[in-house]
């Protein structure tokens, strides 16, 4: 499997530890994301956003979480045969994992290039497929990890801190 990390220099150890925290999250939410179901893709992000809003998370941080999470949800619906979203909410951050059942990303570096997209016509008809999903996730998250290869499942996970 190929791994892609976007972590601020000097923060590697601290942030990689946050991706595999041993303490249990305060709240864990799980949503199934079916293939090409654009009417329901977004429900997970919407619930997470509403919960964090009730918990008093700052509105600009909330916007970053919502955008990154919705983009990732749409990616699973648009590009995979389906998968799931798991949100781990701690008192200081949120860790959201998107795991699908393939068919994988052949070249993650290329997928990160703004404007590059493999989206099909149906996806484009909905106004998606601009090739900005992964770059938007990277832009809005504090740390991003992608693990994938052609023919395999993909994991996209990111961290966003509340302050």
């Amino acid at each position, binding site marked *: 499997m190929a791994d892609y990390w976007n972590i601020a220099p000097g923060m590697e150890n601290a942030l990689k530890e946050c991706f595999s925290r041993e303490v249990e999250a305060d709240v864990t939410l799980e949503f199934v994301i079916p293939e090409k179901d*654009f*009417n329901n893709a977004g429900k997970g992000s*919407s619930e997470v956003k509403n919960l964090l809003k009730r918990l008093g998370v700052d*509105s600009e941080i909330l916007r970053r979480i919502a955008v990154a999470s919705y983009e990732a949800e749409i990616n699973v619906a648009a590009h995979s045969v389906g998968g799931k979203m798991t949100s781990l909410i701690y008192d200081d951050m949120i860790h959201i994992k998107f795991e699908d059942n393939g068919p994988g990303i052949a070249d993650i570096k290329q997928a990160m290039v703004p404007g590059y997209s493999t989206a099909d016509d149906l996806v484009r008809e909905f*106004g*998606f497929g*601009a090739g*900005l999903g992964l770059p*938007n996730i990277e832009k809005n998250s504090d740390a991003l990890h992608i693990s994938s290869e052609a023919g395999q499942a993909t994991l996209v996970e990111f961290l966003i801190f509340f302050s």
Partner: protein
Amino acid sequence: MIKLTDYMKAIDAVNFTPALDIGVIELEGAYVCDMLSDVMGSAKPKQAWITIMKHLNVVAVASMTGIPVIVFAKGNQPDDTVIDKATEEGIALISSPHETFVLAGKLYQMVKS
């Protein structure tokens, strides 16, 4: 900053979300685009979103991005599922018979004057 209701008069707009209090919405500009990811990447709160896309996902995009109002150009009208979802999420939906160029131009003029 201008009032949405003043902008609506200037563009002959109709309101599809009468259940919402649109009188409180103020705008400092707009984002004009039909590609959803570009909107999520670049639009800002307090901007109207001018588009011809009118399916359910535009409401989700507006909600995630913090956009208060979607302006459908060229008389495009959303269907009831979209209106219900927008009302639930607190996103105002309005439609104008004018084209995008005119809608953006009028708003620009109002905001700058």
